[in-house]
């Protein structure tokens, strides 16, 4: 198996001793077809066991190993070494606090995810004896793309609005809210609109589009957010222009 010498510059931060983060250089030999995560694993196994980072599946499914690789939010298991020349700069995901080395604190994202109620809220309670909720393939297709989110937070690291205004609910959470709003079995849109149609919701988005460019699951959060803006604007016009608020 052909090997290549990989040079990495990794951002380090030890919360027990450091007041600032600093870069540390490593050189390691990896298989030609390897990914950045392989290089980090080799470093941890053979050079520096103190290096901290998150990973799990190594197949772009779990969404754990997101990092900034040469300034681009990427899953490190999906960043092929052959695509990089020279020193590869590896940093924790932008816009999130650094817990330790490449590990970030996702608390803010998790909190926002909870707020948008990303689960089915049935229109009316239905006993199990009445059977399942039926859905046509067309109804499924309407929201299917937005179900593919793996909560990797790359879109938050790419979104300058989230970096500048951390109260912004953000791309993944709003896309998931939109996913359930679009579901024919769901009746929870009004509850979610209170969060996602607010000032800190979709109106913080200025359509930079970076979220969709970096999304490894091709969810296209920018599309979801623009659709939410249009739907929310229609709500506003109905409420203010139609008799009875369009209800």
């Amino acid at each position, binding site marked *: 198996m052909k090997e290549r010498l990989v040079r990495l510059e990794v951002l380090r931060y030890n919360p027990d001793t*450091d007041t*600032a983060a600093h870069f540390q250089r490593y050189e390691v030999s990896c298989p030609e077809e390897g990914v950045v995560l392989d290089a980090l694993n080799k470093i941890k196994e053979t050079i520096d066991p103190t290096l901290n980072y998150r990973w799990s599946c190594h197949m772009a499914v779990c969404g754990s190993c997101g990092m900034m690789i040469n300034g681009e939010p990427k899953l490190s298991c999906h960043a092929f070494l052959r695509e990089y020349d020279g020193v590869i700069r590896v940093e924790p995901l932008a816009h999130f606090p650094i817990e330790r080395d490449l590990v970030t*604190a996702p608390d803010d994202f998790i909190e926002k995810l909870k707020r948008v109620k990303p689960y089915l809220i049935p229109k009316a309670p239905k006993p199990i004896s009445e059977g399942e909720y039926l859905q046509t393939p067309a109804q499924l*297709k309407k929201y299917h793309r937005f179900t593919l989110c793996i909560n990797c937070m790359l879109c938050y690291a790419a979104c*300058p609005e989230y970096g500048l205004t951390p109260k912004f609910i953000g791309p993944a959470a709003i896309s998931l809210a939109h996913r359930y709003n679009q579901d024919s079995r769901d009746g929870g849109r009004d509850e979610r609109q209170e969060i996602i149609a607010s000032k800190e919701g979709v109106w913080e988005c200025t359509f930079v*589009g*970076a979220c969709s460019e970096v999304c490894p699951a091709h969810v296209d959060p920018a599309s979801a957010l623009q659709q939410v803006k249009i739907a929310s604007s229609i709500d506003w016009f109905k409420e203010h222009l139609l008799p009875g608020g369009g209800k």
Partner: protein
Amino acid sequence: MSRNPLIREVPPTSWYFRHPRYLRYMAREITSLFVGAYCVFLVFAMQSLAAGQSSYEAFLVALRSPASIIFHLLALAAALYHAATWFNATQKAMPIQRGEEFVPGKLISGAHYLAWAVLSIVILFIAGVF
């Protein structure tokens, strides 16, 4: 073990230099200034027309000045770029589902370009260009 996370601030005035995609976004936003400036220019045009013949003729002479021609070229380039970026974005904001399939995005953006071309020809026709 207590937590001591490191917060990194985003530079509020220089963040868009961090990546070419942010510069492209800023370029799109800045072109709106030219679109706005041209609206103000049109208001001046109407004002000079309302003020009488001599005022309007002076305005027409000013239109032929090098500064005016440069402004028009810049505003045209900015308006074209601005319009193209938004037409390309329409397929994201307004997906159309027919049965189980979505209408191809290029068709949605293409329809906007077509409408743009048709309206431009109509306006040029009304203006007596043809």
